[in-house]
């Protein structure tokens, strides 16, 4: 009796299975299920572009409509990865152009995207709809023009914090008059001014436009006319909020804001002057997301705004909010889920003038029962505060604390912050992401290894005493997926002893630690399914095995060694004749 499901039936069933995790399970049942699944998967996510080859992915998923790729390691955001390391989008775009010409959506993060790439996209994918580039670089506004002119069904074009060679604002004019399908446009990271009339016409003929994020060059006056053309916006990123407007213009702008009944997300607000904050009051009650992290508004001017944001779920703000402002958040924003507090930074705005301490976060942890994600930059912290926060909010999923002074102890007791982080990992059983800072001994990492069972991503800087620290983490954290470490005094022993663990993780980054060249070679030889990349700007060939390397980036891969490595990246495949005979074996 044939018990197999006809593949048509299976296909129909699979059309309801959206989650890739579930689809992965489906693909493992048997060969025919594998085949049916792979032919019907539309959305493919590759979180390390060097873990598989583009050809393999294209071959397996011929019906792919949406591809998401991530390139450089996370610490590239902080300039720890030298230019030219890799993460090129081109091979992927080329492969997809050939094998998956029906591709509609491309989402790239931390990748090098050239104008050539953008032109290829424009030329190859007839029904291209979505381009989202996050923290990418390598292209100019000319590439954007190519996309604008050719993609007649474009729905989303979003540039999130990209480094773009800005050759002027003309690119916007290349959107043809026939393009009416735009749903989302984000050019907030560009510098040049675009022609307002072109922008207005584009907005007017885009009835489905839901998200518009302008760049700083768009004036407050221009904002008014744009809002009147698009009162249906759900997400708005303003331009500069500081021009001097006359009374009439102000009241028109106020009117425009009050017409925006659907607005849920507000960002931009560069240079916002305190006297313009009231313009935003009418949209506050509807907001679920507010990004004030570029708004250099001092605390007193923020209070009134915050009290009106009763539905806020996500708040990004600078430490200018101070403890007092966070108390207001705690009492007004009961739906808050995510809080990020960024440092206001440069001399003149630094901590001596800003009264934000650990108390601010404690208040929010007390007042906001749904708080689950925290990024908090501050000058100092205490164990007691972390214990309180953990007790208040065992539902935390993401806790990233950045005490900005390396090695800073608990400022009240002068002790390391071990006990504080212990409380966090002990109480917050669903914690998935953790960044630690301040003075930490090996003990802190013993606690994390013991309790951080759901921890997937961990970031560490300037911490620990010995190899034990790394050993605790690699042997204890069962769910560990990404580990990134800088400036910690260890490496070899724990790394080599836990080498097998590395195959269960997406990647490991270590920079300015004490990992020796010999250990890298040993790891490379023992673990063929890992790419062990040594990123070091000094030549390695003549280095003794004991010499420490600047950075290592280790990731599992099916693709083998990559072919696009620059000079300063070494893998064992480059010099296979260098053996491991010089290692001292105790």
């Amino acid at each position, binding site marked *: 009796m044939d*018990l197999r499901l006809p593949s048509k039936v299976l296909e129909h069933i699979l059309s309801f299975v959206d989650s890739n995790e579930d689809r992965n399970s489906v693909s493992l049942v048997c060969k025919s299920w594998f085949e049916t699944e792979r032919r019907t998967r539309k959305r493919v*996510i590759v979180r390390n572009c060097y873990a*598989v080859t583009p050809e393999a992915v294209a071959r397996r998923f011929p019906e792919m409509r949406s591809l998401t790729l991530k390139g450089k390691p996370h610490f590239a955001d902080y300039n720890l990865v030298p230019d030219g390391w890799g993460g090129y989008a081109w091979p992927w775009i080329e492969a997809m152009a050939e094998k998956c010409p029906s591709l509609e959506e491309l989402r790239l993060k931390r990748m090098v995207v050239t104008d050539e790439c953008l032109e290829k996209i424009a030329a190859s994918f007839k029904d291209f709809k979505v381009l989202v580039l996050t923290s990418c670089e390598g292209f100019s506004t000319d590439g954007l023009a190519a996309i604008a002119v050719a993609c007649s069904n474009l729905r989303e074009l979003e540039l999130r*914090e990209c480094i773009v060679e800005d050759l002027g604002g003309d690119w916007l004019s290349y959107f043809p008059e026939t393009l009416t399908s735009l749903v989302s446009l984000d050019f907030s990271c560009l510098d040049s001014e675009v022609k307002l009339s072109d922008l207005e016409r584009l907005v007017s003929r885009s009835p489905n436009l839901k998200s518009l994020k302008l760049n700083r060059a768009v004036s407050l006056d221009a904002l008014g006319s744009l809002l009147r053309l698009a009162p249906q916006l759900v997400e708005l990123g303003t331009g500069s909020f500081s021009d001097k407007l006359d009374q009439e213009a102000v009241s028109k702008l106020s009117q425009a804001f009050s017409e925006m009944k659907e607005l849920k997300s507000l960002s931009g607000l560069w240079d916002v002057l305190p006297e313009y904050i009231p313009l935003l009051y009418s949209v506050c009650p509807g907001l679920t997301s507010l990004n004030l992290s570029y708004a250099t508004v001092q605390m007193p001017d923020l209070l009134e705004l915050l009290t009106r944001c009763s539905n806020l779920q996500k708040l990004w703000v600078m430490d200018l909010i101070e403890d007092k402002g966070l108390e207001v958040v705690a009492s007004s924003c009961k739906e808050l889920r995510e809080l990020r507090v960024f440092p*206001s930074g440069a*001399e003149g705005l630094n901590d001596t003038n800003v009264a934000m301490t650990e108390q601010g976060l404690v208040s929010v942890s007390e007042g906001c029962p749904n708080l689950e994600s925290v990024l908090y930059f501050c000058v100092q912290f205490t164990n007691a505060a972390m214990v309180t926060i953990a007790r208040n909010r065992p539902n935390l999923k993401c806790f990233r604390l950045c005490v900005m002074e390396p090695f800073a102890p608990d400022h009240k007791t002068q002790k390391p912050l071990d006990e504080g982080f212990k409380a966090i990992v002990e109480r917050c059983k669903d914690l998935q992401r953790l960044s630690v800072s301040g003075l930490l001994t090996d003990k802190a990492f013993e606690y994390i290894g013991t309790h951080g069972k759901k921890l997937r991503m961990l970031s560490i800087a300037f911490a620990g005493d010995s190899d034990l620290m790394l050993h605790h983490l690699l042997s204890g954290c069962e769910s560990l997926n990404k580990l990134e470490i800088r400036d910690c005094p260890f490496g070899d022993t724990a790394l080599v002893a836990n080498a*097998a663990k590395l195959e269960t993780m997406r990647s490991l980054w270590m920079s300015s630690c004490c990992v020796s060249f010999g250990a890298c070679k040993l790891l490379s030889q023992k673990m063929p399914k890992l790419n062990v990349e040594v990123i070091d700007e000094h030549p390695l060939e003549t280095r003794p095995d004991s010499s420490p390397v600047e950075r290592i980036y280790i990731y599992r891969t099916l693709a083998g060694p990559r072919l696009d490595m620059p000079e300063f990246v070494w893998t064992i495949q480059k010099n296979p004749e260098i053996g491991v005979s010089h290692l001292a074996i105790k």
Partner: protein
Amino acid sequence: MEGGSASGSASTLSNNENVLVSCEDSSSPAENELELGLTLSLGGERRVSYADDSSSSSSLSSRASVTAGIKRTADSMAATSGQVVGWPPIRSYRMNSMVNQAKTLAMEDPIKNRTDATKMRMFVKVTMDGIPIGRKVDLNAHSCYESLSNALEEMFLKPKTDGHLEAGLKILPDGSSGLVLTYEDKEGDWMLVGDVPWGMFIGSVKRLRIMKTSEATGTAQMIL
């Protein structure tokens, strides 16, 4: 679930691929293939250094930090922490915005941009022989050598697990305890701390080092 038999290799391959071509990991057992007994001896000092403009410091990792592809944000780095590459961990994009805004604000409100020395912090790096990780101390938090010395003793000589200061360990100018405090001045020379008036010291100190007296050689140039 009955059905066709799973082909071993296809499943393994697809499992590996699945893990890489999607969100979640499969949980494979962490087999420790390597003998724990295998260790590597590491020659040379382990030292964490900062990428100071001024220092041509000892460890490779420090030099690496300095040369490591600092693309666009050298200015912004100087404006914020000024001491360490990529720290605090803020995206370049945001750093650049912050620097621009700071300039704007400084122009608007000079009061906030005080350069009063008593309000500004003055962090200098402090290392102690035999301890791999350096610390930083705010010299402006002290007004005399004794205060500074006490602070350093707190930082370096107080074991972290318990609160007891090892009896008798003090950083004394005469080095009689075995430890002596030295500093590098603007000219790059290493001097004994305490010889000049405090104000003069503050004006010329670049960094501090707690040395074992057995290694101090007075006026000789110290090689790090």
